[in-house]
């Protein structure tokens, strides 16, 4: 039997789980097929400023998978300013969509795959896409909270997963990325590939505390709040993401969008 535990065991109590499930079913009817409701809850962050306290997160919708090359091409089609040869230099470093090997602004799908996640997009571009699609980038806490909604049988399994994760953070084959949905890694509400495919932009990827942490040798130690392998993997993810700047267009960085919950639905929440 699967234990319905968070990746950091013990934060989701049974009553709230029931509420979540009912609420989840109701919301599914409203939701678009490519996004799911991530129910409100809380999680333990590795950030030193949040020592011991669970971080509450309101419910929100999140894309099931990362934005694909094809979807991003649709966006670039309709928004001339975001085509590779048109994009203003203030919004991206060189390297924006460099894997497209485009003629004009069309990606070469034979090489890069329609259904592979788009990468080499700056934070500015990711933001623009999500706005265009009626959403926004998830916040750092939303993304991390969602990523932790996974079921594991034991803490041993969590450690094994986290160990693989660190290995993956050390070596991603950017030229042979899998298609979205291909990792088999899925949260209990159905969000796919938050690990194992690409790294993803979030709204506040460089939170104010990044300066305090000063991103030096002690930083990882200060992020070992949870004392397990998962927090080591998380600290590498946080630090790597924090070290980028909004213009960085990088072969491992893609994104997915989040959407606010309809206010009427929100008011039904207990």
């Amino acid at each position, binding site marked *: 039997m699967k234990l319905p535990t968070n990746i950091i065991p013990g934060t989701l109590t049974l009553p709230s789980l029931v509420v979540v499930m009912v609420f989840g079913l109701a919301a599914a009817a409203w939701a678009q097929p490519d996004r799911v409701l991530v129910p409100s809850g809380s999680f333990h962050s590795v950030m030193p400023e949040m020592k011991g306290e669970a971080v509450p997160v309101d419910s929100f919708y999140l894309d099931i998978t990362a934005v694909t090359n094809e979807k991003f091409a649709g966006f670039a089609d309709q928004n001339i300013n975001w085509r590779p040869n048109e994009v203003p230099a203030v919004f991206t470093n060189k390297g924006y969509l460099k894997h497209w090997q485009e003629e004009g602004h069309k990606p070469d799908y034979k090489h890069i795959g329609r259904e592979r996640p788009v990468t080499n997009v700056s934070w500015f571009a990711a933001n623009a896409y999500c706005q265009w699609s009626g959403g926004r980038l998830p916040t750092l806490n939303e993304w991390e909270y969602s990523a932790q909604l996974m079921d594991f049988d034991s803490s041993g399994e969590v450690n094994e997963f986290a160990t693989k994760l660190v*290995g993956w953070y*050390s070596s991603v084959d950017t030229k042979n990325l899998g298609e979205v949905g291909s990792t088999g890694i899925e949260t209990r509400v159905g969000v796919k590939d938050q690990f194992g495919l690409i790294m993803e932009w979030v709204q506040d990827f460089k939170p104010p505390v990044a300066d305090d942490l*000063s991103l030096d040798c002690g930083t990882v130690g200060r992020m070992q709040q949870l004392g397990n392998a998962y927090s080591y993997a998380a600290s590498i993810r946080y630090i790597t993401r924090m070290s980028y700047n909004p213009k960085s267009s990088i072969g491992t960085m893609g994104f997915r969008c989040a959407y606010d919950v309809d206010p009427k639905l929100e008011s039904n929440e207990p």
Partner: protein
Amino acid sequence: MNFPKRTMALLTGLIFAGFFTLAQAQTGEYELDGMTFGMPEAEVFTEDYDGPPVAGEYLTMLPNLKPLDYEGNKHHEVRIDIIAQEIEVADGVKYNAWTFGGTVPGPVLHVKEGDRITFVMKNRSDEEVTITEPTKEGAPFMQQTAQNNFMKAQPATMPMPHSMDFHAGTVAKDDKWRSISPGESIKFDWIANYAGSYIYHCGTPSVLMHTAMGQHGVVVVSPRDGYDTDYEVDKEFVVVQSEYYLKKGAGELFQYDFEAALNVNPSHVVFNGHQTILHDQPLEANAGDRVRLHVSNNGPSGTSSFHVIGAIFDRVWMEGHPFNEMRGMQTVLLGASSSATMDFIVPEEGKYILIDHEFADAEKGATGTLKAGPRTN
């Protein structure tokens, strides 16, 4: 006549402003005990550079050290770019290394005490860079890797933020050693104020992961007035000890094993980045030669009890500083990021084994050979 007055006022203003800037620059850089401190702020920028990842006259591949062929001090322009590279570090053990310049350890930089270094580094971790094609451009390091590709280096990519921390430099780390994203470059100055051999490494967290993945190397700062025995030295080499923490990944390649790294249980402990390179390509000397080794233990986490089987170190300068002289040492204990410059006399023709006398390390690879020919003079 308002106009000339105004012009005069403007000019005076400009001159004052000029003095002010000059005064600022002067208070920025200062001398203390014959050393220079207070370097200008580092510059982070983007550039189109796609040339050799290592440039500068005094950068070589281990175990070589480029002799200093100049009098007095020199202002060096040095480039060491960050690139990912698939390399072989033991028979059949390949992984995608994070490197300075394409090899692990990175190139050896040789300068003199008091030299100024203007250092440029581009984070090209998101770009395939070949280091094994013969080129006339770039540092001697580039020709040496092309001629002697024992690591079977292949271009790879693994985009990550990275940084450079020269232990030979005395600067504020939050400025000079800051992390840059793929596609960005950083440029800063430092002065080699102290003689000795100093490691350099990536300081981006997790430092354990970044250094274990291969981002480290050595700067040899030769003392202004040399060491006592300089005139007797026949051969000079650089030897770096370091650890790998690797395990088989899903495919052909090996991967970083963070549990082993955290528990300081290396899969390989090596000299000059490869488990058998100093046996496959032994150091060479003759009986009666005075051999000088600059030995650095780059870690990331282990110690080295460095010994040469069949020899005694005639002189040892701890950290390579000429004032730290010891004599008649059998073994030199080096902590992580610690070094020594050591002389020994090769007694007779034969084989001498360089070894970390912590035998667990030796059996994981920390050994090498010095092959001695007959006495010639």
